């Protein structure tokens, strides 16, 4: 029983550790002042209205949306057929892909940014400073999530046998893919798109180092605003948090449905 209580304690501790900063920020963003006192003073939505009426904020938000959605579109077109091809034609390649997709983890954004900067600095093509270079970098970030989740979805549905069954009923391979395999991927695809989106939307290093203020994304804006009033930034943080948390929650719902 003592052991059980210890274990229970550890679980609660984890929950508190994760929730406390969020709660603090929320209160801060809703209060007029919270300086040397223990409790905050005055309840206000002032910081939120200021934020949501700022043109630069809205532009940055728009830039982030464009880059993220563009990346996800590119990733879907490239990765979905690749995953199917690997599972149907070369199932043994899956092992190698699982290593390959870890490359982006092995090379952190600062490292690859510095690398890309020195590569392109003197080169003839100047992608640096344009959103196009972000698309490429973000693709490598989305790849592990999308490949892993799609691959897991396919592993569950026994691709070979379903395609065999469809063939015997008269369907061609592309037809079998569209009618039988893709619908099975739909939920895994949506879930991985959501996760990738919230990850990409929060990406800062590539955006700041490769593009900076020339195509300011939300994170870069946020970074540049870091010296504004703490209440204002807290409102920003909370707005952001609610937005991506809603997204993440949707992703979870979808991936949970998939399992049942």
């Amino acid at each position, binding site marked *: 029983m003592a052991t059980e209580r210890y274990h229970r304690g550890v679980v609660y501790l984890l929950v508190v550790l994760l929730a406390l900063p969020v709660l603090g920020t929320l209160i801060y963003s809703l209060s007029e002042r919270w300086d040397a006192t223990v409790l905050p003073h005055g309840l206000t939505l002032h910081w939120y209205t200021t934020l949501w009426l700022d043109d630069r904020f809205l532009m940055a938000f728009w830039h982030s949306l464009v880059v993220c959605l563009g990346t996800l579109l590119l990733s879907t077109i490239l990765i979905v057929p690749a995953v199917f091809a690997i599972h149907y034609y070369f199932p043994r390649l899956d092992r190698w892909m699982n290593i390959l997709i870890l490359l982006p983890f092995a090379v952190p954004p600062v490292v690859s940014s510095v690398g890309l900067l020195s590569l392109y600095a003197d080169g003839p093509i100047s992608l640096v400073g344009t959103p196009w270079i972000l698309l490429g970098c973000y693709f490598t970030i989305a790849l592990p999530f999308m490949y892993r989740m799609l691959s897991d979805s396919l592993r569950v*549905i*026994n691709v070979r*046998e*379903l395609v*065999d*069954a*469809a*063939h*015997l*009923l*008269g*369907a*061609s391979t592309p*037809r079998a893919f569209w*009618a*039988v395999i893709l*619908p*099975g991927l*739909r939920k895994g695809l949506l879930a991985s798109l959501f996760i990738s989106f919230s990850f990409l939307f929060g990406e800062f290093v590539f955006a700041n180092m490769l593009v900076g203020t020339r195509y300011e994304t939300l994170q870069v804006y946020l970074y540049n605003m870091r010296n504004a009033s703490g209440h204002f930034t807290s409102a920003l943080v909370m707005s952001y948090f609610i937005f991506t948390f809603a997204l993440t929650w949707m992703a979870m719902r979808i991936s949970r449905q998939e399992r*049942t």
Partner: protein
Amino acid sequence: MSFVEVSGFAKSYGGNTVFEDINFVLARGEFVTLLGPSGCGKSTLLRCLAGLVSLDAGQFRVEGEDITYAVPQKRGIGMVFQSYALFPNMTVSQNIAFGLKMQKLAAKVVASKVAEAIELVELGGKERAYPAALSGGQRQRVALARSLVVEPRILLLDEPLSALDARIRRSLRQQILDIQRRLDLTTIFVTHDQEEALTLSDRIFVMDRGRIVQQGSAETVYTRPANEAVARFMGNYNLLGPQESRLLLGLDIDGHLAIRPEVIRLFAADDVTPGLIPATVMHSQLLGNVVRYQVEAKGVALQIDCLNRRAADLLSDGNRVMLHIAPEDLQEIAP
């Protein structure tokens, strides 16, 4: 000209022979079972017939037409998989309609054929259910309907009952047989279960290590096994070596002698009819409708199956009995 002709089928993977020298013909409407232990090549053979795996050698004719190299879509062959292979994103109706839609039939025709197929497999009321909501037996009936609705020339069944529990297995077995008889459908059924093969088939093809070692009716394969492997696989045969044959029956035989446990008759220990062999019950097991005795007669251990007719008739360990083995029930058998 036979309905189906298979000649010289052979297949190997990386130097390992999966099967070779496979030859058989089927009449229209015949139900045959490919029976063999796991790994004997029977499932791969079935996939080759469906065109899902390519052959190394051989010829495959259906109604005289050579379809050895035809794509699976053009063979007119239906197949039911052990794992059902139902399309998880489609309802029962949509699964069954899939093959008809590929043939671009009018929606009305599709609907009426699907309704017919659903009635055939007794799944009325489940039309809009998804496979995940069905039991194993129901799923396999959907898979069956999906294969049947496109009216294949041959139906292949790859251990369709293995994943189901004993009761469902027996009832679905009967249902498959009824449907096959009604549609007069040429059917090849793969299984490793002897009882399934015995109860279903017009003919049984026994496979062992990549070859068909015996073809025949259920009675023939069960009562006249072609070799020792078939005998061991088909039943609980008593297999006597040369020395045991001499001890028990005074016969001089080079090979093995096979005696089925259910042909040996038991008589009371005081029966003096000539030709009876005295024996002692070593052990008995009540299996339900059958009692299985282990007896020892003249130093030879034998297994005997009797019906469990009356509790009072059951013999206890150590009881002495007389055995009768009719000469026509002794079979010399190839090793």
